[in-house]
């Protein structure tokens, strides 16, 4: 697993993180290609099942990027998203998965650098954790 390149899914709010990703592109700020962006109309649209399904389908890490505190276009979608991320973290812990595989980040539409920084740091975190237990479980089974 020396050359492990994680698959990361980022649910990005249309009003902030998705635009911030655009901003990063316009400014030619690079971020890891491991991060696959899914645009959502609000981070509050992201439910626990979306995070779980991403992991179930093979993602090594998933994060939600929503607006800064108090700046949600729909009042409190980012607060709800964070609560759901925390719920999934708890569930993963109970299942013996690393809770760090899911995370919540907040940024504004103008924070292209922050978007790239978050993408880099989260990718590094997942690289350190290694492949998802879903992948290693299948490999362990095949080896035994």
């Amino acid at each position, binding site marked *: 697993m020396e050359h492990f390149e994680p698959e990361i899914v980022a649910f990005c709010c249309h009003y902030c993180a998705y635009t911030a990703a655009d901003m990063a592109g316009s400014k030619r700020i690079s971020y890891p290609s491991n991060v696959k962006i899914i645009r959502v109309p609000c981070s509050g649209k992201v439910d626990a099942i979306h995070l779980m*399904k991403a992991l*179930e389908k093979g993602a090594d890490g998933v994060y939600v990027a929503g607006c800064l505190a108090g700046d949600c276009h729909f009042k409190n979608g980012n607060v709800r998203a964070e609560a759901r991320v925390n719920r999934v973290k708890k*569930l993963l812990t*109970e*299942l*013996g998965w690393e809770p760090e595989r899911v995370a919540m980040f907040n940024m504004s539409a103008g924070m292209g650098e922050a978007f790239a920084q978050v993408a880099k740091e989260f990718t590094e975190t997942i690289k350190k954790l290694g492949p998802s237990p879903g992948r290693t*479980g*299948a490999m362990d*089974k095949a080896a035994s």
Partner: protein
Amino acid sequence: MITAEQKPIQEIIQYIAPYSKILLVGCNECVTVCAAGGRKEVGLLASALHLNHLKQGKNIDIREITLERQCDPEYVEELAPYIDGVDAVVSMACGCGVQTIAARFKKTPVFPAVNTRFMGASLSQGVWSERCKGCGDCVLGITGGICPVARCSKHLFNGPCGGTSNGQCEVSPDIDCAWRLIWERLKELGMESRYEELMEAKDWRPGGAGGPGTIIREDLA
């Protein structure tokens, strides 16, 4: 409504450990409203069980279905086409739903995925509080609409006990003393005299002490 909470995931995993084909059944009624066992929770539990098995390198086949009501035989009958193809059923309904499935499908084990808690009301989004014990002889008409059976920790009928402190219950400062609430409400209604009327010892038989309850409406049965 009847409220419930999902069981610890490890308890559910232990139940289904010997099986590889599971029918996971939700209910569209009370457990949907209290976010314990509706379609959404069925999906989430199925996903969690998949993650658990992926980690162990095992396969599990989970069929998800959510019935209109699990406590009515006509809806439970909808499971008949699937039951022979599964090793076990996991129900996310209250205890009534689990037992209705168990009564209909005698050869397939049924396991509960939620703990049924109480008959409660919603205080705000995501918060439910016990309001009824189903005592079978409602006294709300003489207690200002506040139930001493459900909301007094000792189910007292003639005023508070000595444990009430600053209007809160001795069981926990987070619990309002039901009799403080009743008194305040009776005062608001100008019905303080009601407080002086002694209530006789309650007959607990209609509430379960006389054995499992049954209602037969002859005009409907």
